[in-house]
């Protein structure tokens, strides 16, 4: 098996999709902590948010490849013919579409990290930016929970 075939195999794709999503969630949780801690620098907030955005983009591409190439042909028929077809009809359909909210939201949080401490206070955004960072992480966790339901339905029928 060459490296391309290895990277395109289903367990590796799922692993990278989930792994990058976890990095994205963790980055925005970390950013939440950085906004709470007034001592952290603007540069460190920008880097943390940029890592989160990059990780979510990677998760989007890899998960999208798996979804388009394998899920519809191999996994969806198993779920639809099992005891929990709702796992596809509700959980998967919701997951794949609310995932698309993450990129614009995360990019906007990245834009907010450009502000320094003084500007955050001046525009009265300190509390709001905590909500925004938390929303990115929360949305990622919700998508992860939906992914667990879908995987469970595929495994146990």
């Amino acid at each position: 098996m060459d490296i391309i075939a290895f990277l395109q195999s289903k367990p590796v794709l799922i692993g990278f999709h989930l792994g990058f999503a976890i990095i994205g969630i963790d980055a925005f949780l970390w950013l939440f902590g950085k906004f709470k801690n007034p001592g952290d620098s603007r540069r460190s907030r920008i880097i943390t948010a940029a890592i989160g955005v990059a990780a979510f983009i990677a998760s989007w591409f890899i998960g999208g490849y798996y979804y388009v190439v394998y899920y519809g042909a191999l996994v969806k028929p198993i779920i639809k013919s099992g005891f929990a077809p709702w796992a596809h009809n509700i959980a998967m359909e919701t997951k794949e579409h609310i995932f698309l909210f993450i990129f614009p939201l995360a990019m906007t949080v990245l834009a907010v990290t450009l502000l320094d401490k003084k500007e955050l206070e001046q525009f009265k955004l300190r509390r709001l930016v905590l909500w925004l960072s938390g929303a990115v992480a929360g949305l990622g966790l919700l998508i992860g929970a939906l992914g667990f339901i879908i995987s469970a339905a595929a495994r146990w029928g």
Partner: protein
Amino acid sequence: MNKPRIIFSSALAAIITNAFIVIITVWAELSAPLKDWLKNFSGHHWTSKSIFSFLLFMIIAALLYFLSSQSGENRLKRILIFLLISIVLGVIIITAFYTGHHFQLF
């Protein structure tokens, strides 16, 4: 670089993109010709939605930044609150829609 204007442009573009995702998702489920068009555009309806949502966000954010004459400082807090609300509403609408669709309510 006008930082408030970058944030304002990004937030408004994100709200418009979120609305686009909700509308195209619901509309395509209810309209077979639209879903077929999305499938034919890239090979998969979700890939097309991904491409369009990405391009829409980037283009609108850039246009708003370069064409807007206002700095957006006074509107920052309000637009970011609207962004949060649009995310919550988007998740609720899409979840409710697919739940109703599954139970054949519409």
